[in-house]
């Protein structure tokens, strides 16, 4: 190797590095100085679904309103897996430094991308694994469903409750379990039947499932799919009561039979994440909001709910917020007779992702 070449490479390297700095970091410095932030969010469905995805999209919209320097890249209908990774990497290439991977199944793809880009911050709803640059956030939905159960147990006349659910995944099983336990706490006679449609969005199939349940004499129908509109509407038409989820506007479809509903409200949390990334205080956490947090909203009660039920719900809500009561307090048997939670113990809400059984008194298959 000649001296000249060594000299050249020695001289060139810092120049190249300087150029790279000017091009890459220089821009990001300028952007940071102005307090700009590019946020990427990927959705499993459509942001106008009147349900789960819309709640996330609304959250980002609130963040954008509160933080005018935020720029948002949204991509809808992203399949879980390698596609999700590609879309997230693409967002990072466009300058995104905060990524929301807004579906349960995005956890592993997000963890892989997070490892590749340690300077980018990731947020995942409902995840049970974290990374130094990946925060998980969720809300204690079972507590809210327990309250719905109390209201339903007090309202039902046939003592038969039903749930139309997309898929038998742990979070949904936990919600229906909590609902049944809440109902049973005020009405020992109740039974809850559960039907899975196998998909997050197929309103016509949801309708058939709802009708099958109603034909068995069920008079309170709950629903955990993308949008509760169809099921709530059918319950109303057939003179049954309903409990909504994800979209509180569903109340207008059931002026008579509406009991109540639960919805996520992500706006304030997302604003907080955005602020933290901009001022450098963001750190990886595991956030699980309770009923007192701003992450969960419970809809107003419908006219069918007796006054004593409404009072009891409000009291129980306080007890939950003070953490003086556990939803899954033992002893609890599953619907196959196995003891799942021993007396004087409880199933921690941190372990929601592992719940693969249904409580005694629920008629349905957890797998």
């Amino acid at each position, binding site marked *: 190797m000649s001296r000249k070449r060594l000299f050249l490479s020695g001289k060139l390297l810092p120049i190249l590095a300087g150029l790279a700095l000017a091009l890459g970091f220089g821009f990001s410095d300028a952007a940071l100085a102005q307090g700009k932030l590019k946020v990427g969010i990927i959705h499993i469905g459509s942001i106008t679904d009147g349900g789960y995805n819309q709640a996330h999209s609304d959250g980002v919209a609130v963040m954008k309103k509160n933080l005018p320097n935020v720029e948002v890249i949204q991509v809808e209908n992203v399949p879980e897996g390698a596609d999700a990774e590609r879309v997230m990497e693409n967002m990072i290439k466009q300058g995104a430094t905060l990524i929301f991977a807004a579906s349960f199944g995005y956890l592993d793809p997000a963890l892989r991308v997070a490892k590749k880009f340690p300077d980018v911050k990731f947020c995942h709803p409902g995840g049970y694994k974290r990374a130094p640059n990946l925060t998980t956030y969720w809300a204690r939905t079972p507590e809210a469903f327990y309250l719905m159960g109390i209201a339903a147990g007090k309202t039902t006349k046939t003592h038969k409750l039903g749930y139309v659910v997309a898929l038998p995944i742990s979070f949904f099983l936990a919600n229906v379990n909590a609902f049944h336990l809440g109902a049973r706490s005020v009405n020992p006679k109740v039974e809850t039947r559960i039907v*899975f449609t196998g998909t997050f969005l197929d*309103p016509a199939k949801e309708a058939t499932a709802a009708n099958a349940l109603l034909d068995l004499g069920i008079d309170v129908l709950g629903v955990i799919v993308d949008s509760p509109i169809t099921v709530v509407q059918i319950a109303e038409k057939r003179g049954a009561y309903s409990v909504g989820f994800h979209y509180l506007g569903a109340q207008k479809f059931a002026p008579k039979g509406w009991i109540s509903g639960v919805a996520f409200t992500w706006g304030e949390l997302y604003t907080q994440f955005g602020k933290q990334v901009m001022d450098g205080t963001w750190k990886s956490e595991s956030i699980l909001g309770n009923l007192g947090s701003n992450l969960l909203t419970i809809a107003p009660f419908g006219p069918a709910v007796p006054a004593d039920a409404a009072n009891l719900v409000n009291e129980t809500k306080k007890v939950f917020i003070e953490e003086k009561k556990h939803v899954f307090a033992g002893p609890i048997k599953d619907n196959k007779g196995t003891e799942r939670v021993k007396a004087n113990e409880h199933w921690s809400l941190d372990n929601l992702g592992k719940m693969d059984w249904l409580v005694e008194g629920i008629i349905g298959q957890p*797998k």
Partner: protein
Amino acid sequence: MIESILGSLLIGSIHSGTPLLYATLGEVFDERAGIVNLGLEGVMLMGAVAGFITTVQTGNAALGILAAALAGGLFNLFFGFLVITRKANQLASGLAMMFCGVGLSALVGARFIGSKIQGLNEIRLPFLSDLPFLGRVLFNHDLLVYMALPLAFLVWWVFFFTRWGLSLRAVGENPTAAFAAGKNPQVLQYQALFIAGLLAGIAGAHLSLALAKTWSEWMTAGRGFIAVALVIFSKWHPLWAVVGALLFGGAIALQLQLQALGVPISSFLLDMLPYLLSLGVLAIWGRSRRHAAPASLGQVFRGTE
């Protein structure tokens, strides 16, 4: 109790089967004219969204059905332009039209998500609806359910007892021969595609106006493709289509019913039931289907060039 469950199952089968029947009859028109339409899903979605929007705006579900049929017909005519006039590949064009329909319907419908409609409701028939059991199962349905079976017979009559139907079938079998006999294959194909679009549009309207009474993106959830399969199942025959649609719809209703009853079988397995059934039927009857297809299905007619 058993009577009540059986009734529930039959009603569920009719509900699930009706949109499938309309869509299948539509695809029979497409394919009898020699054109495979994989874009049926998109046509149904255009019908579903047009019907829903019109019903929201006018409050009249009958106008909604009309709009749905027209939207489906026009959308399918555009497909016709691609594959008949421009002579594009049918499978590729069909898939492209499917995605186009998914996107376009989502775009148009976005503003109407969460809108409330009265929709298409049950019509009780004098005397018949009061019959024990049968009244509940057969005569407590919406207009589109009542129309479905007579329509299948009408399609059958058109295909096999009218001159136009004969010409159409001739085009599907051998367009060159039909051309030589003085028929214009392209005109007949356009006519068939328009009718197919009308029917698929109505199928979509039955989902959004009668069953779900709501609009959501891609709410057909694959029914367009099931209909394409049902055409093969029914040997391109409109009356067999009734059997196919009812069987498939029945399998969907049955699996949901079994879950509601608490049968100890995994919901994942039960969800496969309709597809297992289709596979079984195709495996048993597969051989006899080979000769049932229109001979020129999927081929581009170049006769006049």
